[in-house]
């Protein structure tokens, strides 16, 4: 077999898919060297999380032709990461994950540039996120997914027929694993269900009723939670329990054992104590590899159109035999997050302060401590202090004026809502209409003007 020049290129295999026309392809597929080069040069992909999924994703995307990647992770490397987060070595323990992961992939894959961000996803401005072609989620919490979903959906604009405007759709690819199970999904806000439309897929965490812990413990976990949530406070008046403090954990374990003996309940171990108290989710390399690979492949297909895409939710279960399943979920048309937005009618005389107070009482929002943004301008920011001080003078001003006297416009508000006694950061999109203004009609999309 003769070697043609193509065999000498590092894109030898990828070229087959990107340079050749195909039959089972996406809508805007235009095969050619230009497509390949555009993916390398112009497609910017953001990876959220540099953990079990994130490490795999960065490698997979770098080897799928993407050359502009950024990654956010707020954690530092721990010893328990090393069984699966293959970009980290023992010497790296204690260093920020995002930085080490980016460096390792750049060392091995030439031409790839990865910018690490060692921070929380909430620390970045909306503008930061709007810059990316695709956002890939390798996150481990529902709250973080919910937040970034709201961010991506905040860019979405609708035309006067309530159809999503294609150029405002920010695609997301989401992965998640637990033990031998996992999922991968594509979220095209306004087209496929967003994270919030199908929030019921993630059942709330099991919380034990306090009376069960106090009076009728039945399982080892009940004994552990009794020691952790009740006994600790009884004995250590005022001293907070710290799960990373080895002595604290040992104390909880010993107390849990005592309680288990008292009630004749089997199964309390130190490892289980750590698991219950820290809510540790078992994790292995292979499941992360499978789910990340599916996410990276879908990212490549979204960016290039070189094949059809997943529609729209893949589940994998390898615990008993091997099961994969694709489910096509449908959008919730009334979704607060990816829908056209919560409609709010306002008097033209309302001040920004009054408006913020109103958000707290609005039955669909119940949003306290709101920060308000209009077309990228901060009208009022609760934090950081510098910004708060800069925007404070706006509070007494009339909102209608602050928004440039347009009859209809889009506002983004972030604040906190509480659910089951827990507080969450929430971002909401509002469709504001001022009463009695003869403005331009059919300007539902003024936010994009």
């Amino acid at each position, binding site marked *: 077999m003769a070697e043609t020049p193509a065999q000498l290129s590092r894109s030898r*295999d990828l070229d087959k898919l990107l340079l050749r026309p*195909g039959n089972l392809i996406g809508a805007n597929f235009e095969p050619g060297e230009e497509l390949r080069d555009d993916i390398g040069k112009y497609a910017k992909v953001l990876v959220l999380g540099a953990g079990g999924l994130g490490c795999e994703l960065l490698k997979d995307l770098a080897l799928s032709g993407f050359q502009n990647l950024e990654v956010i992770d707020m954690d530092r490397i721990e010893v328990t990461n090393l069984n*699966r987060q293959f970009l980290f070595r023992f010497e790296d323990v204690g260093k920020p994950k995002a930085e080490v992961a980016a460096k390792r992939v750049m*060392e091995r894959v030439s031409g790839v540039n990865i910018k690490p961000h060692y921070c929380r996803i909430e620390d970045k401005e909306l503008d930061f996120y709007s810059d990316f072609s695709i956002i890939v989620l390798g996150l481990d919490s529902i709250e973080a997914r919910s937040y970034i979903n709201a961010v991506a959906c905040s860019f979405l604009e609708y035309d006067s027929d309530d159809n999503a405007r294609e150029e405002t759709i920010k695609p997301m690819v989401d992965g998640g694993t637990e033990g031998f199970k996992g999922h991968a999904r594509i979220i095209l806000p306004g087209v496929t269900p967003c994270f919030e439309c199908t929030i019921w897929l993630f059942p709330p965490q099991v919380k034990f009723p306090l009376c069960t812990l106090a009076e009728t413990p039945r399982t080892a976990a009940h004994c552990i939670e009794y020691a952790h949530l009740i006994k600790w406070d009884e004995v250590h008046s005022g001293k907070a329990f710290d799960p990373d403090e080895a002595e604290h954990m040992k104390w909880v374990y010993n107390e849990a054992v005592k309680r288990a003996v008292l009630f004749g309940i089997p199964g309390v171990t130190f490892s289980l104590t750590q698991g219950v108290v820290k809510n540790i989710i078992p994790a292995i390399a292979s499941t992360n590899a499978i789910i990340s690979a599916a996410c990276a492949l879908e990212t490549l297909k979204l960016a290039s159109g070189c094949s059809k895409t997943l529609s729209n939710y893949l589940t994998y279960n390898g615990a008993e*035999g091997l099961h994969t399943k694709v489910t096509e979920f449908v959008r919730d048309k009334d979704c607060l997050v990816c829908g056209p937005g919560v409609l709010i009618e306002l008097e033209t005389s309302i001040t920004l302060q009054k408006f913020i107070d109103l958000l707290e009482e609005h039955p669909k929002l119940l949003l306290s401590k709101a920060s308000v943004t209009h077309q990228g301008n901060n009208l009022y920011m609760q934090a950081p202090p510098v910004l708060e001080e800069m925007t404070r003078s706006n509070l007494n001003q009339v909102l209608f004026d602050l928004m440039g006297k347009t009859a209809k416009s889009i506002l983004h508000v972030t604040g906190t809502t509480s659910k089951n006694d827990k507080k969450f950061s929430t971002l909401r999109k509002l469709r504001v209409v001022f009463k009695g203004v003869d403005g331009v009609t059919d300007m539902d999309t003024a936010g994009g003007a």
Partner: protein
Amino acid sequence: MAEPKTKYDRQLRIWGEQGQAALEKASICLLNCGPTGSETLKNLVLGGVGSITVIDGSKVEVGDLGNNFMVDESSVGQSKAKCVCAFLQELNDAVKAKFIEEYPEALIETTPSFFSQFTLVVALREANVMLIFARSYGLTGFVRISLKEHSVIESKPDHFLDDLRLNNPWPELRRFAESIDLDTQDSVAHKHTPYVLILVKMAEQWAKSHGGSLPSTREEKKEFKDLLKAKMVAMDEDNYKEAIEASFKVFAPRGISPDLQQILNDNRAEVDSNSSDFWGDGGCSEGSFIPSGISLLHSNLEFIANQGGGEAPLEGSIPDMTSSTELYVNLQNIYQAKAEADFLSIEQRVCRYRSIEDEFNSPILPELQKYLTDEDYSSVAIGFYILIRAVDRFAANYNSFPGQFDGGMDEDISRLKTTAVGLLSDLGCNGSTLTEDLINEMCRFGASELHAVAAFIGGIASQEVIKLITRQFVPMSGTFVFNGIDHKSQLLSL
């Protein structure tokens, strides 16, 4: 050096110290370290297998840099086995990593006994060596386990199918339920009686007044639920609410499902005839959790027919439920004791696999035809399965894979079509065809290995390796065919 227990904490929570010890004793051999094989080994090295041996005679080319993370620019021109092995060693110094710069085909030819030293070979059905095939090809690929037989020690169902036997309690459970009188309890005891006991008692009562049968019609089921409701003495009795919600478990037919019964009957015939061509490819399942398509062996069959009284062995775990501590712990002990007794009655839980050679030469025809005519889910997967085999035949005839080189695409497409039709006819499926679209796509793929596809296939392969080595969890059955177009992949039993 990290404390190994800490490093492996997140996986020890899945397979425990026993599983980990098995991994640390295992020696794995990889034939050909392209991206698929390299990714497979990566996941196993991270998990801490005992030793790995990478066998590959080729040198690293520039093209390999685009799809294999384990080689870099400094590797070009060097032994691929050596470079991949060096990277893998970096991941975990507890693993013994070796490489042999030789083509596996040559090694098989000259010293076949070489392979018997390994626990598992990735890519010969040598005595007592497990073998797994994994391959990626464009947007498709497959994984296939090949070994003579495999026994599962613990299948660890991860969610309760709620096999509580409420519709068919064994004597110990029945006696325990009888010891409680729902009508004379004080209110505290009444709201702390686990729903399992409530349902066993109520079902017993119902059966007594209905000639031994349990509620089956819609009216009867409603009546039964109303009886439960009537037993409540206060609105806040969560145990009764749980009982009403779980009452469908009383209505379920006793014993194993008719589908499963059919499978068992088919299997029994084959086992009795001592055929080595066992029905389907099998993983084997412990207990009552029996995924479809999995073949059970002798011992399990015997259990269901004899000691089990028509039921599969009990799994034994019970979900948490509203209860007093004492009743819950006692209940747990009764289920555990039954599960242990059932366990002892089963001598062995074994799965056997059909040889790959048998599958290739004489696939199970009705199954094959069923897949080929299924227009819904699996048509693409079976299409890829046939085409992966067809491209190998193509390569044997024409010295290259269809579309491997630029130019001559139209000719390759028509040759591949002819090859696929010929293959289908050899398999006994005359007249079956594959779609033009799929044939065109296969030629477009041109034997490429995309990293993301390789990582997916390698991930699946390593997952199955772990299940085989730890002897926990049920390994996959059949041939897994990856469909990278829309992810409607499938397990084929051929």
